[in-house]
C-alpha cells in the first residue's frame, strides 16, 4: 500500500466523520476542516464536548 493510498483513506474517514457530525448537529461548518484533517484529535473534542445545536444560548 502506498503512502498516497493511506493518506487518502485517512482523509476519507475524516470526511465521513465530519459529515456524520454535521448531520447530527454536533459540529459546525467551521469545524469541518479540523475534523477532516485531524479527526483522531478533533472528533473527541468537537463531537463529545459540543452540545447539540438545539441547546438554548446562554445570556451574555
Amino acid at each position: 500500500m502506498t503512502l498516497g493510498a493511506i493518506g487518502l483513506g485517512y482523509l476519507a474517514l475524516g470526511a465521513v466523520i465530519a459529515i456524520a457530525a454535521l448531520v447530527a448537529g454536533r459540529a459546525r461548518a467551521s469545524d469541518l476542516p479540523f475534523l477532516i484533517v485531524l479527526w483522531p484529535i478533533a472528533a473527541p473534542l468537537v463531537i463529545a464536548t459540543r452540545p447539540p445545536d438545539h441547546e438554548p444560548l446562554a445570556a451574555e
Partner: protein
Amino acid sequence: MSAAVEARGLVLLEQLLRDRGAIRARIAAGRDLAALTRVMVATIAIAMAVVGAALGSYRGGVQIAYAAIKLPLVLLGTAALSAPALTAIGAALGRRARLSADLALVITALAFGALVLVACVPLLMLGRALELPYHRMILATVAIFGLAGVASLRVVVTALAREAAPGCTSAVAGLCIVFALVGGQLAWALRPYLVRPRATDVVFVHEVEGSLFDAIGGALRSAQGIYTRDRAPLPDVDAREVEP
C-alpha cells in the same frame, strides 16, 4: 478570521509562552478545549512550516517548499495517531480517562515544542550561513529537535504531576514510546528534509525502502565498516562534465 478570534488566539499563544499555569488550569477544567486545540494546531502547522523551510534552505530551491509542507504533516500526523495513547495507557493503569483534556494537553505541549523549534531557526540559518558540513548540520538539527522534545515533554509531565493519579508516570512513558515509534516511522516515510547542497535532484518523498529500523540497522553496520554497496550514490556530475 475575525479580529476577536485572532486576538484570542494570540492571547493563548502568549499564555503558552509566559503563563502555562493558566493553560494547564483551563485544560484541567475542560474549558473550551476545542478552541484551544484549534489555536495550538494552527501554531504547530505554521511553526513547523517555518522550521521546515529553514531546513530546506540548506539545499535551497524547491526543497524549501517540500520541507515546509512535510514537517507540519509529520508532527500533526504523529500527534493525531499517538496522542490518544496517553489516555488509553493511563486508563489501563487506573488513571481517570479524560480523552478531550489529554488530547488538548498533548497538542498544547507539541505547540510549545514547535515554538521552541522556531526560536532555534536562527541557529539553523547560522549553520547554513557558515556552510556547516552536512553531517554537522544533521547533528545540530537533531540537538535542536531534542531540545524541543524535552520542552514539550516537560509541559506534559508538569500537568500530569499535579494530578498525582496512579499510572501517570507509566502513561507518560507509554506516550513517549508510542510517539517516538510513530513519529520516527512517519518522519522516515516522508524524508528527506535536510538535503546536501550538492544534490542536483530533489524528490518530495523517497521511494518506500524498508522501515526506520532497517535504516538504523544499516547505519549501525556501516559504522562498523560493514557495507552492502560498493560506493555511496553521488550526483551524476562527472558524466555531465565529460560531455562535449
